[in-house]
């Protein structure tokens, strides 16, 4: 099996036609599904949160078979992820895509578990500490994309589980938990 780093690539990645957008509907659906799963899987294991369409992204070409996804194909697969709620466009031009390999709700659950694991039910923490503090090491929260984190926190704020407060700068932005 071919690998990208230590990520195992699926069989279809070595089959040239999968790098061309298929015109026949049923075939296209199957193709899109395979690519969606691959993108999510890869981003999850590699901790990638943003894909930029015009940048080199290892998944979008396979030098072994000398094939690359066209811009149109990349857009098609990412748009399919957006439609499914597993990704979001970050810009109007649809050049940057935020990948939700965990949905926002899943991230919210992860945060709650983190709070309980660290006895922070009534505690206070800065945003930065949540994403890069000692407690975050070894958890999925470590290195989480800021946009995603804020969304998840806002979701929890809406449910009354915490309150976000601003400090004097973004470095001081923090959270008061009431879990």
């Amino acid at each position: 099996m071919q690998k990208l780093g230590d990520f195992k690539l699926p069989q279809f990645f070595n089959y040239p036609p999968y790098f061309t957008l298929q015109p026949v509907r049923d075939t296209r659906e199957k193709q899109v599904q395979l690519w969606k799963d691959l993108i999510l899987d890869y981003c999850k294991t590699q901790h990638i949160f943003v894909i930029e369409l015009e940048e080199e992204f290892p998944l979008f070409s396979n030098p072994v078979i000398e094939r690359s996804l066209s811009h149109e194909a990349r857009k098609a697969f990412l748009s399919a992820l957006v439609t499914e709620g597993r990704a979001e466009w970050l810009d109007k031009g649809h050049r940057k895509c935020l990948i939700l390999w965990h949905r926002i709700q899943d991230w919210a659950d992860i945060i709650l578990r983190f709070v309980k694991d660290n006895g922070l039910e009534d505690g206070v923490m800065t945003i930065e500490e949540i994403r890069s503090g000692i407690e975050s090491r070894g958890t999925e929260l470590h290195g989480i994309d800021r946009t995603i984190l804020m969304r998840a926190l806002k979701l929890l704020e809406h449910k009354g589980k915490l309150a976000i407060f601003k400090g004097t700068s973004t470095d001081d932005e923090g959270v008061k938990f009431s879990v």
Partner: protein
Amino acid sequence: MRRRPGIGGLQTAAAARDQYRLLGENVAKLRTDLMKEQLATFRSQLEEFARKHKNDIRKNPTFRAQFHEMCAKVGVDPLASNKGFWAELLGIGDFYYELGVQIVEICLATRSHNGGLINLQELCMLLRQKRKTDREAVSEDDCLRAISKLKAQGYVTVDEVEGRLSWTSGRATDALDTLLDEGLAMIDDGHKDGKRRYWFPCVSSISSSVGADI
């Protein structure tokens, strides 16, 4: 060789060993050369044989199978390329190519009856019926060879189909697009030569479902 004592004796023994070794190498080289010559002779005799028995090879499946075996023994594959001596002499590259396409057609047509699985004898029977109007008889051995050739390449271009089967232009595109619509082919526009390729993911499943070891 008379043994002599002392250093002189040792030197003689060493010189003798060298001479024997050299002789041994020469003998080996001679044998290799002879063998190469024998193979070359065999090859040209095989070509002569093929020329003489061209019709038999074309018409008689058993004879054809034995001929293939003979070729294999000396490392000749008459089907390896569609150009050159063998292809031109025997024209059998096209024979197997066309057979391969017909096999795909039969598998397509019978898919709803047999769920995509057909055994080799039935395939051959259907193939003979399909071809009975003219041309050379077809054996199971031929079917297996045709399938293994299809499997090896995995794709075709419109030009290739037109050229090999002598179809009018457009007919090949229609046929391939039909297979595409049926979900049996996939397009590939990514090759640097810019030619569209039609791939057949079903072919590998055909060769394994025909129940033979290829």
